[in-house]
């Protein structure tokens, strides 16, 4: 079992515009990834792009696993052209994971946009605890995995920026309304979140306001993914921490937003 392995592409399916679901078959034995973990993937063998790219584990299928990704630039664009049978070099699983549930906690999962990628995998492991799920996207087409959530017994509360499905507006505001309706909110509520920076910042404020605990999965440019380059840090109350090593999941109140 090695964290440096090759995997062959089983499927690389466009789910909506610019978004792809990649199913990989590791050619070696790999460790079972936990929700929040990520993989560093070589999208090509040439020197440009040079570095591997980080992607969260989306779903673990026993031996195969899935990545849900968006075409953001050069690397992901090349990745989207990979075909079944192609072989990719990968490092992982890497990083920490969403912490296991304490018995008395009620988890509120919050996903913004593609933040659903790790959140679905999380949902699969904790659905027995009947977590709540708040999930926002720009428009109803970009709401992915709704069926999967429902089949896990999780009925997500939904919002879209354009109001095309669920409430109109951003998901943190919807969550805020919910929490306000619960006043005083049970202190056993705990947020597990992933999404774009502005969402996470708003969520931090919310957590502060309602005095909630929570964990958020962060992103940062990465070179090694192993903790050696010190390139992927974020500022925390405890100094700079490496997203690839101490993260990507951080206690929400520890992250210092500039």
């Amino acid at each position, binding site marked *: 079992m*090695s*964290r*440096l392995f090759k995997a062959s592409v089983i499927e690389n399916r466009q789910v909506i515009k610019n978004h792809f679901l990649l199913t990989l078959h590791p050619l070696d034995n790999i460790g079972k990834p936990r929700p929040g973990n990520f993989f560093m993937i*070589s999208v090509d063998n040439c*020197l*440009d*792009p*040079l*570095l*591997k790219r980080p992607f969260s584990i989306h779903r673990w299928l026993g031996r195969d696993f899935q990545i849900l990704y968006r075409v953001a630039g050069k690397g992901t664009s090349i990745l989207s052209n990979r075909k079944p049978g192609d072989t990719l*070099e990968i*490092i992982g699983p890497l990083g920490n994971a969403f912490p296991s549930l304490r018995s008395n906690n009620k988890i509120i999962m919050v996903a913004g946009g593609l933040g659903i990628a790790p959140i679905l995998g999380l949902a699969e492991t904790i659905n027995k605890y009947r977590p709540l799920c708040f999930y926002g996207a720009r428009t109803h087409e970009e709401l992915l995995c709704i069926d999967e959530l429902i089949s896990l017994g999780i009925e997500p509360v939904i919002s879209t920026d354009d109001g095309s499905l669920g409430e109109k507006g951003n998901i943190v505001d919807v969550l805020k309304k919910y929490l306000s309706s619960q006043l005083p909110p049970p202190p056993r509520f705990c947020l597990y979140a992933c999404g774009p920076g502005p969402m996470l910042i708003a969520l931090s404020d919310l957590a502060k306001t309602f005095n909630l605990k929570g964990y958020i999965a962060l992103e*940062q*440019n*990465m*070179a*090694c*993914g*192993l*903790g*050696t*380059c*010190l*390139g*992927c*840090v*974020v*500022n925390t109350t405890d*100094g*700079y921490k490496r997203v690839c090593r101490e993260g990507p999941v951080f206690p929400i109140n520890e992250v210092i937003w*500039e």
Partner: protein
Amino acid sequence: MNLTTNLGKLKLKNPVMTASGTFGYGKEYSEFIDLNNLGAIVVKGISLKPMKGNPDPRICETPCGMLNAIGLQNAGLKEFIKQQLPYLRNFNTKIIVNILGTSINEYIELAENLEAAGVDAIELNVSCPNVKKGGIVFGTDIKIFEELIRDVRRRTRLPLITKLSPNTADIKLFAKAAEDAGSDIISLINTITGMSINIKTRRSRLANITGGLSGPAIRPVAVRMVWECFKTVKVPIIGMGGIISAEDAIEFILAGASAVAVGTANFVNPIATLDILEGIKSFMSGNNIKSLKELTGTVKC
């Protein structure tokens, strides 16, 4: 086939080492490779006091390369000797410590303490372009540069490596000055200062604005500088800058390097160092080369 590499009094079992700052303190890579097989491990730059480093983002990718502005984050000398060195000592490989200071006295104190702690050699980082209070002044003002080396030289018996900056009009002058001042070995190149702008945010991709360019993009510059230095000085040269494969390593050796250091490639491929070592071995056996000394600096011109 003899892979032993003598860099003056520093004897390596083979010519492949790691470049400072790209291999942490070894531990993370021990999962992927047997550290005993490395010629040497050069650890991330160490300062007297802990340094917290630069704000994020600290790195970004560029064509065939990357920029970094880590800002020399490190836990400081004491922590290194207490936490990292004992682990590294478990392996049968040379441990070289890259050091940086804001004054000559700091460099001396670092060198003396590291000698006492039993490291195998010291690499003077006089060329990091990222920290204003860091070594950069030593790397660009040739008088202070010489003075630094001379003073550290007097205070340690450890093999002394001086790491040269490529951000200069004539690297030969610095190579010569390092040799004259008593450096046993020179290593080159450190990163080239660069910048990359995100046109959407209209900000630099690095919080520090500029950073150091490394990776294959800079290899032609590095090879040229190794060749220039080889023709200028007699001290052995550790060549680095964009080495990804054994072919690249051999290019540096032909240009004049006695050993090579692998940097950015470790990020791309955590077993790069040993892949390169294997490739060098098969090149040697394929070309009936008994010792790398036969190759160093033999590019035909």
